[in-house]
């Protein structure tokens, strides 16, 4: 480790009998945690969702608010001091790339932490250039931060943390929302930084393989809010394998024989339910992201739509789903799909679209319209005027099938990430559409939700559902990529 003159000293973390209870909960989220992290150690923090990993990480960053957010017991010290009193000793990177960009220009955003720490101006700009260089973000200092990709935004956040010269790097699922290229970029940037400065690292992540060979220690939190395991990566990952798998953690090679497999046998091509010729797509009339596309969705087949960020995958999916108007060309439905309706899907009424093409959005919260899980599932049957008996039958079936029955009365907005995803799929399945369009269905999902979703989708496709999924997920493609469409970014932006 080249500890250059400008490198900050690596920080130590001491956690003694520490616990945390959220203000709105009776039971503590974390209890009796004892942990000593030596300067320069690299720790991967694992555990099932809801085990309090982020809570512990945020406490190390000193961003756990006052008494109104919850109460802490025991002691948690960074370099022997309360974390909030030594701001700048730690740098935190969060999961969501969009919500942690602070200022409109790249350089200003990196400078923000230094300004708050009272660093002199000349020194700030020296650090800004150094940090951008370290994370490999090769854009102008006045480049608009909103124009960065997800992976670049996460590296920007890392640069903003580095500019404070922290001895402790805290990463809270920094790659969960990124495509494979973004994951590689961020991981490479973190590795370069650690090699240069030898900083202490604590990273929370449920995809173990991203970080497994970079860390030298794995700490596992259990659902009871206590430490479950602590030790070298290979030892912990092999001894705790079963428990980790059961907790939804993505252990390398952990998909197992139960994961569904894509259809490899060469079937006779079936009749296409949706056909597009010479299609141009875009969110706004002057903003064409792809043109000249010829696409078919054959009945009873699962098609995966892949390609880098910004290639227009979601836009194409929403256009095929009859939600966005084609900017050129047509999306035509076969006679069996339109079943008596005239015109193309974009001209159909909302209610007529429901039984023909269902669309699950990337962000589940964008499609929730009621205040309970059960009501959410009833939306489609009610819109179809199915009657109480049929509605109840469909709702009960989906509640049981997607393990939503125990939270049937909960508000959709309060669910966990996995529950939200299952509900958003179930709510669309309630209409029994002939074609199902899914936008990034497995993004950020734990292993258990992943297995349930892919198994259900495989079964529905084998029973005759026509599926189109936008995805980056290699395991998902192996399970459901009967056919593939790959989009490459084009420069055909707008003829103004």
């Amino acid at each position, binding site marked *: 480790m080249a500890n250059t003159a400008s490198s900050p000293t690596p920080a130590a973390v001491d956690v003694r009998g520490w616990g945390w209870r959220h203000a709105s909960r009776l039971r503590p989220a974390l209890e009796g945690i004892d942990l000593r992290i030596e300067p320069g150690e690299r720790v991967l923090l694992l555990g099932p969702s809801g085990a309090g990993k982020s809570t512990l990480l945020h406490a190390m960053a000193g*961003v756990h608010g006052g008494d109104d957010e919850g109460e802490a017991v025991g002691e948690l010290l960074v370099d022997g001091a309360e974390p909030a009193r030594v701001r700048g000793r730690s*740098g935190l990177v969060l999961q969501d790339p969009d919500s942690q960009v602070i200022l409109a220009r790249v350089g200003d955003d990196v400078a*923000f932490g230094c300004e708050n720490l009272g660093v002199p101006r000349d020194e700030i700009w020296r650090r800004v250039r150094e940090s951008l260089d370290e994370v490999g973000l090769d854009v102008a200092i006045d480049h608009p931060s909103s124009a960065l990709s997800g992976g670049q935004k996460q590296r920007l956040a890392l640069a903003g943390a580095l500019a404070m010269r922290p001895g402790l790097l805290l990463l809270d699922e920094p790659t969960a929302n990124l495509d494979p290229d973004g994951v590689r970029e961020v991981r490479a940037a973190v590795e370069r930084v650690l090699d240069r400065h030898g900083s202490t690292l604590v990273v929370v992540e449920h995809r173990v393989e991203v970080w497994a060979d970079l860390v030298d220690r794995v700490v596992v939190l259990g659902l009871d809010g206590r430490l479950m395991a602590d030790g070298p990566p290979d030892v912990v990952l092999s001894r705790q394998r079963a428990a980790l798998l059961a907790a939804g953690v993505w252990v390398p090679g952990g998909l197992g024989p139960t994961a569904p497999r894509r259809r490899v046998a060469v079937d006779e091509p079936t009749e296409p339910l949706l056909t597009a010729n010479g299609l141009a797509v875009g969110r706004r009339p002057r903003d064409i992201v792809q043109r000249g596309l010829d696409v078919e969705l054959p009945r009873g087949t699962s098609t995966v739509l892949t390609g880098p960020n910004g290639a227009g995958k979601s836009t194409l999916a929403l256009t095929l789903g009859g939600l966005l108007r084609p900017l050129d060309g047509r999306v035509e439905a076969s006679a069996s799909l339109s079943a008596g309706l005239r015109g193309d899907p974009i001209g159909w009424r909302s209610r007529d679209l*429901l039984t023909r093409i269902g*669309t699950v*959005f990337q962000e589940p919260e*964008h499609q929730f319209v009621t205040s309970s899980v059960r009501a959410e599932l009833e939306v489609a049957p009610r819109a179809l005027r199915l009657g109480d008996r049929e509605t109840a039958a469909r709702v009960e079936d989906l509640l049981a099938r997607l393990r939503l029955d125990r939270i049937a009365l909960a508000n959709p*907005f309060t669910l966990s990430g996995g529950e939200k995803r299952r509900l958003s799929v179930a709510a669309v399945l309630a209409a029994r559409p002939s074609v199902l369009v899914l936008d990034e269905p497995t993004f950020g999902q734990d292993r258990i939700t992943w297995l349930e979703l892919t198994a259900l989708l495989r079964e529905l496709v084998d029973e005759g559902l026509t599926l189109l999924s936008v995805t980056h997920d290699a395991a998902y493609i192996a399970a459901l990529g009967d056919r593939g469409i790959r989009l490459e970014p084009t420069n055909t932006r707008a003829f103004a």
Partner: protein
Amino acid sequence: MSAVASGAVDAPRLRFIDRVNPVTKLAAAMLLTAPLLLTVDWVSAATALVIELVLFMAAGVRPRMLVRRAWPILIAAPIAGISMLLYGRPSGEEYWSFWLARITDGSIELAIAVTVRVLAVGLPAVLLFMRVDPTELADGLAQVWRLPSRFVLGALAGARLVGLFIEDWHAMALSRRARGIGDTGVVRRFATMAFALLVLAIRRGSKLATAMEARGFGSDRPRTWARASTIGWSDWVLIAIAFAIAVAAIGAAIAAGTFHPVWS
């Protein structure tokens, strides 16, 4: 966010005005327009408008640029004028009338005064703020005007989220159609979208607050500034010009005997 930011970047460069701190432009616009709102007469507004146009031309504003940037003002001014022409307080000779609408000597004069006034107040505001960047304005508010930095920077960072909210709103509108409830019930649909947007806004806002706090925002330590926001002689010149225009406009109206304060 991008609408504001890119608007500022695309805007044409101007001589002199670009060298002035955004907060000075704010002060100059207020100094210039406040007196014009005290009186309703055509002489003061026309005097101010003529001087403004000459000065903006000197700064590099061209007629095409004026139309492209200030078209809402150019449309609003005659609309305000026409309504005054038809419905303004009647006096003097009447030329035409239909039901409530009456065109008289008095209403013609009022129409001209209002049209010119909207232009005299609106054009400098648009042209001065054409190239103002939100970050620079925030820097000026905090460093030159010494407004609390916590408040100014919080508002600046929060305003960036508006672009995300617009995307949320579009996606939610599409999802309503996908869920079979896009045909009827506009009010109810709007309500569910507004609620969801509120939830998302609070969630994104608290994440942003956490990210800012983790970077030392809101601590008691004295803050430094990466970008210096200063004022110099050009700022004082702009203030002097704004003051001079205001004085000239009111003076001309008094000399011409048309000064007509709104309170009389």
